[in-house]
């Protein structure tokens, strides 16, 4: 059986960042990849998707972004080529087309079983992504069989959909973006809206994520957050590269807004009557953030350098949002489940999951010699940004190296 000090699972931006950090620390390792480098970026994203973070937040380790278009938002295909360039430059030891089947504890290390044989190792870094599987509600099976069901992982472009109306479920970034492009393709869209986070793309001349960074809100450590579990479950903000996109912009182009999809009964979708409160809560929360920005500008004495404070129009909620939708009668032909994602650690045979099967970890440390990367608010808000993964890799690699040294001494 093959032995190596550390196994990294997943050759995306997180796994490759970790590989570089381990190389710098002289830790021999291999990166196992079920497909090709940047596999999910390549195969599980829709055509028009651009990163939600401006380019200066998208640097891979040692390649901080300094191009002329540092404030632009790169396409996913551009990110894929950047990741390839990074792997080539660092000659990352990637073993492609290798699927992990099981990880079991073995001595003071682990045994990693793959479809290409087994590997024993001292430590494992699971960098296989937060978006491995779509989180689809269990009542999806009640949908009529002729309805075409897609998720942001399987959806590519609007013209792959049947010509009839479409129900998009979920109002985070993916739900808003897909609702917009499907509506623009001539298919009438109804969007089901539950808890969501509203953010303007830009505020007082700067990108909103730039503000979060400036105010230090992107890097508050996970162990200083009140109720980190709740923070980690918070839906991602509804943003799109470049432009303003929110429920109001969708209403303007004709998208119909409905409440949270609660269940499907008799081939009819039933929506919650709580839409107004969901929108009010998102507006209030957005305004609190804008106030924080205003307060910072005022306290720094920077008023004259920025355009004046403003507030965006409250989310317009239909007077009587629809409560049900009969797929057949109203000629709906597709449903897009933009209801979030789940990571996949099915092969991990360790008691490290909570009662809802969620992986438990402390800032990426799961157990002795076992690490995870890329999950929401893993160590800080920007853990899910490309550059944030580099910082997490740096911190976790230092821990991993230190742990190896201690075991050698012992």
């Amino acid at each position, binding site marked *: 059986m093959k032995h190596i000090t550390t196994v990294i699972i997943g050759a995306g931006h997180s796994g490759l960042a970790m590989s570089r950090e381990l190389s710098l620390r002289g830790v021999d390792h291999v990166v196992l990849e079920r497909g090709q480098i940047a596999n999910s970026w390549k195969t599980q994203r829709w055509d028009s998707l651009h990163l939600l973070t401006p380019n200066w937040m998208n640097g891979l380790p040692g390649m901080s972004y300094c191009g002329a278009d540092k404030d632009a938002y790169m396409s996913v295909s551009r990110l894929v080529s950047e990741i390839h360039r990074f792997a080539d430059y660092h000659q990352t030891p990637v073993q492609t087309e290798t699927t992990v089947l099981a990880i079991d504890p073995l001595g003071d290390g682990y045994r990693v079983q793959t479809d290409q044989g087994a590997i024993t190792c001292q430590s494992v870094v699971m960098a296989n992504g937060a978006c491995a599987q779509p989180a689809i509600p269990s009542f999806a099976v009640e949908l009529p069989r002729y309805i075409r069901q897609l998720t942001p992982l399987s959806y590519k472009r609007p013209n792959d959909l049947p010509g009839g109306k479409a129900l998009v479920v979920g109002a985070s970034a993916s739900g808003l973006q897909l609702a917009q492009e499907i509506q623009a393709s001539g298919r009438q869209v109804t969007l089901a809206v539950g808890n969501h986070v509203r953010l303007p793309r830009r505020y007082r001349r700067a990108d909103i994520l730039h503000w979060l960074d400036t105010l230090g809100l992107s890097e508050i450590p996970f162990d200083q957050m*009140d109720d980190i579990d709740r923070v980690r479950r918070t839906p991602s903000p509804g943003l799109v590269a470049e432009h303003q996109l929110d429920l109001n912009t969708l209403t303007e182009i004709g998208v119909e807004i409905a409440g949270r999809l609660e269940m499907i009964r008799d081939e009819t979708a*039933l929506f*919650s009557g*709580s839409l107004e409160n969901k929108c009010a*809560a998102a507006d209030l929360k957005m305004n609190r953030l804008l106030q924080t920005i205003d307060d910072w500008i005022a306290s720094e004495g920077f008023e004259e350098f920025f355009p004046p404070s403003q507030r965006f129009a409250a989310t317009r909620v239909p007077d*009587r949002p629809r409560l049900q939708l009969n797929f057949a009668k109203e000629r709906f032909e597709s449903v897009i489940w933009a209801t979030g994602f789940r990571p996949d650690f099915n092969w991990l045979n360790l008691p490290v999951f909570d009662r809802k099967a969620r992986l438990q970890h402390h800032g990426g440390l799961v157990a002795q010699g076992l690490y995870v990367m890329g999950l929401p608010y893993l160590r800080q808000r920007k853990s899910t940004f490309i550059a944030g993964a580099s910082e997490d890799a740096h911190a976790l690699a230092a821990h991993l190296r230190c742990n190896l040294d201690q075991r050698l001494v012992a």
Partner: protein
Amino acid sequence: MQMQQQQTPVDNGVNVDALMGAREVLRDAPAAAQFTWRAECEWMGGVHSRSTVRGFYGLGEEQAHDKIFTVDADHPPQFAASDNGATPVEIVLSALASCLSAGVASVAQNRGIQLHSVKATVEGDMDIYGILGVDADVRNGFSAVRVNFDINADASQDEIAAVVSQSQKRSAVFDIITNPGNVKVTVS
């Protein structure tokens, strides 16, 4: 969490420490968090009925209220009835307002906001073609429900709005009214 520094401690009469403590304890005891609420209802003649609430199941065992409560329901003379109590739909509206008001007090306490007065006005619109069976396209229940809160508190308008929003998010009756649910009725 926003905690305001104040001269006198905020007191809305809600023991938030106990509630937060219970939340922590129950987090690791999911079975104890399973509750069953009950009411018995007896027909009093006509369309008048009386519900009695004695106890409930929760925290792993049978629980009793400190005393027995009764709620009379009837219908007004306009429905050719004897008006011995509020109508069931008015009781539903009262339950919604009570649930949200309890939430407002608790959330405000938790956020360090002193309340001075909280008044909720609830309205539910109904086309009685539904219950009379005149028009099959009209539902029996409310076509719209409106709640208005008039709150006097040591907080900004936005802070008060956020408290009211959070109380909806955590309200059982708000959920019961806004979301579909399965009801099973049997005859013994």
